[in-house]
């Protein structure tokens, strides 16, 4: 491998699209040296982000998040279960991340994507350890009944930074979540109170008076960065991820603490200065994302 200039002659003779396919790394490096990315973003800017709440009407809480063209659909379904003996006054959360073949040419039908279970696990760890959800709020009757929140996230379009988009959609779905009203029936079992009956006088007192919201504290937000030589690229696309293979994902919660700093291998070593830079970029990104979520919540409440 020579310097980018070694193929300088080539690039003048060749069409840009051919050069891009034949020498993807050189193509990127020539952009990076000009502090710009092929999609016209500066190195440290994330793509445009959209969050819309309530995308799935049949679920108890749902959200659609888009970062550039990466699209995630998250939906939560609540079920009553018996809490475990170790924590009788706590509900629980189950997270499943799905990558159907629709999302990317890399995923083949019948063969689940390798990263899907790993991402599920990371999402679960982040959501729980960040302290966003107080599991005690999901309790109904101590030792008898508690809520189980099944969070399912579908990746509709995988164009890089999957974890960031998945976490954003999960957080948005939890902020949209309304816990259904349940009451005890004669046999002492929990039954859902149907929507028509809500607000009317019931012969049995419901456990909750109305559909309540969860109070979300210290919400986690993440940013994935690519490290390439001395460059740091925030919020990579799929193309960038496949060409430059060192990623570092930083998750901070809204009280400014580090929830996760994830880097698995990659040809570039992360030095302390790079780690600090990534954390600083995540702080900036967190402010943007907080605004986006707040805006989504306020527009939904107007509707």
């Amino acid at each position: 491998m020579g310097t980018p200039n070694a193929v300088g002659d080539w690039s003048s003779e060749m069409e840009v699209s051919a050069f891009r396919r034949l020498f993807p790394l050189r193509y990127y490096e020539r952009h990076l040296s000009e502090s710009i990315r092929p999609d016209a973003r500066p190195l440290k800017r994330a793509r445009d982000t959209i969050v819309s709440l309530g995308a799935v009407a049949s679920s108890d809480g749902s959200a659609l998040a888009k970062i550039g063209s990466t699209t995630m659909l998250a939906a939560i379904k609540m079920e009553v279960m018996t809490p475990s003996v170790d924590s009788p006054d706590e509900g629980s959360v189950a997270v499943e991340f799905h990558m159907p073949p629709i999302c990317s040419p890399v995923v083949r039908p019948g063969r689940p994507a390798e990263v899907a279970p790993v991402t599920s696990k990371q999402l679960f760890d982040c959501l729980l350890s960040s302290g966003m959800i107080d599991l005690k709020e999901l309790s109904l009757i101590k030792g008898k009944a508690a809520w189980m929140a099944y969070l399912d996230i579908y990746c509709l379009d995988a164009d890089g930074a999957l974890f960031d988009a998945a976490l954003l959609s999960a957080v948005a779905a939890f902020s949209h979540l309304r816990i259904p009203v349940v009451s005890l029936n004669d046999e002492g079992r929990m039954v859902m109170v149907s929507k028509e009956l809500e607000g009317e006088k019931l012969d049995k007192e419901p456990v909750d008076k109305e559909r309540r919201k969860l109070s979300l504290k210290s919400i986690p937000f993440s940013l994935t960065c690519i490290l390439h030589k001395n460059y740091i690229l925030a919020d990579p696309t799929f193309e960038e991820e496949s060409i430059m293979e060192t990623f570092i994902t930083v998750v901070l919660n809204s009280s400014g603490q580090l929830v996760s700093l994830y880097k698995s291998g990659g040809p570039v070593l992360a030095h302390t200065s790079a780690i600090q830079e990534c954390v600083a970029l995540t702080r900036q990104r967190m402010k943007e994302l907080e605004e986006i979520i707040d805006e989504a919540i306020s527009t939904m409440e107007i509707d």
Partner: protein
Amino acid sequence: MEIDRADGRNPNQLRPLSCSRGVLNRAHGSASWAQGNTQVLAAVYGPKAGTKKNENPEKASVEVIWKPKTGQIGKQEKEYEMVLKRTLQSICILTIHPNTTTSVIVQVVHDDGALLPCAINASCAALVDAGIPLKHLAVAICCCLADSGLVMLDPTKLEEEKMKAFVYLVLPNSILSVLPEESSSVKGEQMEQGLITSVTHGVMSVDDYLHCLERGRAATSKMSDFLRRNLQPQLSSDSSKAG
């Protein structure tokens, strides 16, 4: 700020390390690595011809199979597999044997905390034993963070559960076998201070993380020495066998 550890270690003290290579007869390379009661056995097969679908055929690929002590593999093990695979890929020289697959099979013998770092160390020793070309060795360590902000190294299972957060760090071993294109220092930082892999659990402040990183670096230099010492004498006896 003293915390008593159940086994009487001080916070900076590692559990006794032991490493033996060539423990399996049929494997192309194997190693057993133990840190206290945590023990992992790793076997390397390959390089075998061909790569899986969606892998770059211009490079060698690494496949990791994680075998837990009991039961089926779950999401946790899948995560370990992926971290281990990416970490090993980053230390192997992948361009020497293009379009081949090297399988690394990791068998957990006993889990008493710091399982993933132990597995990374075992796999690294097994790769050396199999003679797979490596850029440099990698050393993994687990740092644990107590509520008081005290950092403890190499926790046991019990300590891992008790603490508010823990970090798995993988750092390169100091001496390079192949020099990278660029100079080895970035803005005055030595190459051995660069981080290969980082996995964290639990909430901590950014300063605490950097503190862990610093302590991890100091400790891995000791572990590097141990690993190198362990690999050296066997290398001389191996050379006659290989020739």
